[in-house]
């Protein structure tokens, strides 16, 4: 089984970190993972993305071609990276994002990710961690245990509680869906 994920948003939202955390958690679960990203001079302020492939097998081709899951935290990112060609893909967008109803996407979720980070946790900067909680809550692609451990390991010391709260908020959002 191979899962391809695309996490997108704006430059400063920490989606590359999120991708790395997801991939490392998968490693801890005993799976394989590859993480790639695309960027350009436009990344200055514009849309950016991180992609992760998680698999039980060896991963040969490292680039995501048919994502099974797409996250988009901003309108720009959604416009650029929500690829409707695979209508079976799970697509999660922040509630601030408007998508035309004609996408034909079967599994589209609009979730107040940024709002949750800003108002529930009090720090918009943890929106990426909320999103991780949400994704893992919805899909179980990695174990919550290893996800938390990786989050703690990868992020600066002193932010443990904040990040645990953010993860939990993500899990909670997942439950509401």
């Amino acid at each position, binding site marked *: 089984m191979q899962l391809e994920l695309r996490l997108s948003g704006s430059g400063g939202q920490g989606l590359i970190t999120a991708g790395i955390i997801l991939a490392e958690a998968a490693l801890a679960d005993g799976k394989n993972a590859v993480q790639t990203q695309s960027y350009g*001079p436009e990344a200055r302020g514009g849309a950016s993305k991180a992609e992760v492939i998680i698999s039980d097998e060896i991963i040969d081709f490292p680039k995501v071609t048919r994502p099974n899951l797409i996250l988009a935290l901003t309108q720009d990112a959604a416009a650029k990276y929500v690829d409707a060609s695979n209508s079976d893909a799970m697509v999660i967008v922040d509630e601030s994002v408007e998508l035309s109803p004609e996408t034909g996407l079967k599994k589209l979720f609009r979730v107040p990710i940024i709002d949750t980070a800003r108002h529930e946790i009090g720090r918009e900067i943890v929106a990426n961690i909320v999103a991780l909680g949400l994704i893992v809550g919805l899909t179980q692609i990695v174990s919550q245990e290893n996800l938390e451990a990786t989050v703690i390991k990868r992020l600066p010391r002193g932010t443990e509680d904040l990040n645990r709260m953010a993860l939990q908020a993500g899990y909670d959002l997942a439950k509401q869906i």
Partner: protein
Amino acid sequence: MNHPLAESYFRMDKLPHIWCPGCSHGIIMASIARAIDRLGLDKDNVCIVSGIGCSSRAPGYMDFNTLHTTHGRALAFATGVKLANPKLEVIVISGDGDLSAIGGNHLIHAARRNIGLTTICFNNNIYGMTGGQYSPTTPTGDKATTAPYGNIDKPFDITKLAIGAGATYAAKVTAFHVTQMDKYIESAIAHKGFSLVEAIAVCPTYYGRKNRKGSAVEMMTWLKDHYIDFKVAEKLPPEKREGKELMGEFINVDAPEYTALYDALIDRLKD
């Protein structure tokens, strides 16, 4: 309605530009256009040349003959443009890295020759485009991705370097001091020989973030509070000069311009 300066001198379909929020590059670019406007230059006779870098993306937005060259080589390409067609008003836009790191040799030689190019250095004390490595103007002790423990290099004073190389016009100003910037850029373009305006810029994204300098506004405020004209400074008591950075028109002298000398040689050989 549209921004009148943008409409007259910029390629509207290329805007908004790619620069980060609060990046000074847009401020300096606009100042160049205002100077051109005030001088009443014919757009067809203006050529803007740049190297590679965030700043060097400027020519793409400017509605003139525009040339985006290789990293560091803007002045060398511009020398060819100017000598081949001296009637062109050639303005070079170059970052601190582009102009004083990889391009340092072309800077000192263009200054030495006193060729009629105007160079505007967008000096943000960092390599913006490649993500925040230290540049030859990063202050000693400051951090950058390649100076994680603080930079041990001594920085260039680009204006002083150009003067040491023989520049006949050199001024320094900041992105905060837009009125003076307009004036210096105008004088620089009007100047007959080689001219340099070093525009101190802010890069909130890399330099600012790495060095906890705060937002673009805070960085601009720093410029406002720390830079004073050297002529003013000369009159201040030492304690008031403490901690101040100097700006102003440091040199402005007449000397024969290179392409004019060459044209004179051609004339001489005709007889």
